[in-house]
Structure formats: structure tokens, C-alpha cells
């Protein structure tokens, strides 16, 4: 068998129209034929339109379409100066045995603070407080060490959204000196309690895995810490 100049991945990129393979050997062309046949067989085995519909549904679940991100008009300093401490109750990892990964975040407990925009600035709210549909909320996270964070919400219908980073698939790097997160959300009219989770990891983590764990009410992955705030939502008359 002659030597190959191209890897399978390169040949697949060629089949996808991304890469030219000018110096292909006979062995490359043989392998290319096998891969092409395999690809064609796969496409024959699926209903592409149906797959696309499912992909769109899954993508939509990951995008907080109903929330509008906007530039917060109140300077961070005003927020920091605002009222007495509020909120939050914070729980580490969940109901599971301690693991080695837990050791990494021992002492890395976090808190989540929520600020609701008001006519004359903002006010902090705590778990159990009532907010109105249309209220604009900004997040503040306190953690002692740099790491990675995300804010995930689960509304009254059980739909989960990534609020921060906006539409992100990966958590954002967190600097403990910059506790107020950029942007804000506007609460929609979905009835019921809304749960907000700040999720923190010493290193990056899979937002979707955490989201599924939160939605399913099971323990978040090892190495991840969460803080939770639940708000009651009042709908407009």
C-alpha cells in the first residue's frame, strides 16, 4: 500500500469543500472513496429536514430569545453603594460525596446578588422577593478567586436560559475585582417563580452539562459551585 499524504480528517475536510488535496496518492484516493461512500450512506440514513428541525429546537432552548440584553444605565459605583446586603442563599455543589475536584474549590464559595432597576437607581432583591414582568435585572457575583462563571435561569415553565455570558456555550472568565457582570436581562411574562443560578468553576466547565443538571434537579458536576436565588414573578394585570 502506498503511503498517504493526507489524514482522514483532511480528506473529510476535502469532502466538506474546505480543503484541496492536490498531492493525493493512490492510497489517499482509495481512502477518500471509502469515506465518501460512508458519508453518502449516513446522509441516506437520516431525514435531514427532521434533523435540522431538532437542531433548531435545541439551539433555541440555549438562546434566551425572550430576554432583551441592554446596556445598564446605572454606573457600577452606584450599584456598589446601594443598600444593605441582601440576598442570597448559597449552596455548594449539591448532595453528593466530596471528590478530589471539590478540594480544588474548597473556600471558593460564591454568592449571587441581583439588582433590579428602579426609577431612581436600583435595589437589591433577595430570594423570595417578588418582581414584576418587565423588570430589568443585573447580576453581581462574589467569589474569592479568579475562575469561570455563568448565570443560568430557569423560568416557571422549566425553560432554561444562559443569561451570562450572553448566549454563551462556554463560561466567561471571572475577575473577583469586577463583580458586577456586564449587561442586564428583562424579565418576560412567563408565569411562576424564576430561579437564577450563578455557577462558578476554578477552570472552565460545560454550561450545557450544568444546565441539564440544574434543570433535572441533580448535582452539578464536580469542581463546580453554584449559588441560587428564587424570585416570585408578578404579571401585569
Amino acid at each position, binding site marked *: 500500500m502506498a503511503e498517504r499524504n493526507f489524514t*482522514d480528517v483532511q480528506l473529510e475536510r476535502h469532502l466538506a469543500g474546505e480543503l484541496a488535496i492536490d498531492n493525493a496518492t493512490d492510497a489517499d484516493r482509495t481512502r477518500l472513496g471509502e469515506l465518501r461512500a*460512508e458519508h453518502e450512506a*449516513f446522509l441516506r440514513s437520516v431525514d435531514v429536514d427532521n434533523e435540522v428541525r431538532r*437542531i433548531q429546537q435545541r439551539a433555541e432552548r440555549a438562546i434566551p430569545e425572550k430576554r432583551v440584553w441592554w446596556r445598564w444605565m446605572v454606573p457600577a459605583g452606584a450599584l456598589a453603594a446601594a443598600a444593605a446586603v441582601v440576598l442570597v442563599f448559597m449552596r455548594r455543589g449539591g448532595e453528593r460525596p466530596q*471528590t478530589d475536584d471539590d478540594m480544588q474549590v474548597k473556600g471558593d464559595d460564591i454568592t449571587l446578588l441581583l439588582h433590579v432597576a428602579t426609577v431612581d437607581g436600583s435595589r437589591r432583591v433577595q430570594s423570595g422577593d417578588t418582581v414584576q414582568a418587565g423588570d430589568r435585572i443585573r447580576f453581581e457575583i462574589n467569589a474569592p478567586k479568579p475562575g469561570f462563571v455563568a448565570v443560568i435561569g430557569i423560568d416557571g415553565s422549566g425553560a432554561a436560559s444562559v443569561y451570562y455570558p450572553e448566549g454563551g*456555550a462556554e463560561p466567561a472568565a471571572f475577575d473577583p475585582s469586577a463583580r458586577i457582570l456586564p449587561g442586564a436581562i428583562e424579565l418576560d411574562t412567563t408565569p411562576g417563580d424564576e430561579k437564577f443560578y450563578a455557577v462558578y468553576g476554578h477552570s472552565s466547565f460545560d454550561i450545557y452539562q450544568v444546565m441539564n443538571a440544574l434543570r433535572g434537579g441533580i448535582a452539578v*458536576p464536580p469542581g463546580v459551585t453554584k449559588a441560587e436565588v428564587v424570585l416570585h414573578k408578578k404579571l401585569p394585570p
Partner: protein
Amino acid sequence: MASGGDEIAELYRRHAPALHRRCASIVGSSEEARDLVQETFARYISAKSNWTDRASPFTVLYRIATNASIDRLRRRKTASEEELDPETRPADLGSEPRRIDNLHDLALLTRGLSDEELTVAVLHHLDGYTQDGIAASLDMSRKTVGKMLARFEDHVKKRAARLGFTPARRASDG
């Protein structure tokens, strides 16, 4: 919605077969691989505006698919639930992780790596790609590939030690 149906369909026809092959080779199930391909495209579409690197769509999708597949293995067997199986521990993992035969162990030991590092590591240790082959396949420099593999090996050693798998302990076990 970040992309229209026609655009996704075109993207799917172009890339799904290769992604399915990638996912199936890791999770060992064609049906589960199909689900992972859906997940891969959903992640790609929902975070499309956040992609700041200049990698091609294939490369980005391939990285997401690899990470999603390894992540699926982690869910099957997480570090908090089970330790590494002594019967499947690679002989020289603690000192020189050149070859990782057990996919579950790979999944446990690679937690915390980036998509890019994981993809490079899987191509090298699982698929047997050379550093030059990986560089050519993913449009990276060989130097970058070398650095990523070095980081991978360091990460695996530390994590193996953290999970109680060290050369010293193995010697005493044996």
C-alpha cells in the same frame, strides 16, 4: 434564531457525516452519535456570534463534537461515582501517557481541558495521529500542537495523581 433552516441544512449535509463518524468512534453507538451531531450543531449555532477564532466551520464543529462525545462518556461514568478501573489502567499512564486505551478513563482524566486541547489529544492518543498530521488536519502549527500535547500530558498526570492513580501506588498494588 441565529441561522435559517436552509443554511443549517447545507451545513448539516456538508459536515454531519464526518461529525457522526467522529462521535461514533468515541461513544461507540451510531444512534447516540446522531444525537451528539444534533447537539454539536445546536451549540455551534447558538454560540456562533461568539466564535472569535478564525478556524474553519469544520474545525470548530469537529472540536465541539469531540468535546460533546467525551463529555457524554463522563456522564456515563463520573469521577465522583467511580474510580479508574484497575483492570483498564494504561500501563504507563502515570509517567508517560502516550497511549490511553480506555475511553472512560480518558474522559475522566481530561476533564477541564479546552475543546481544542481535547481534540488534539484525542487525535494523537486515540486515533494515532502524528503531531504533523494534527497540525495539517486542524490548521495549526506543529509548535502549537506540541504545546497542547504537553499541557494535556501535564493535566493527565496531575489528575491521575489526584484520583489516586500514581506510579508509586500502582507499584504497591502490583
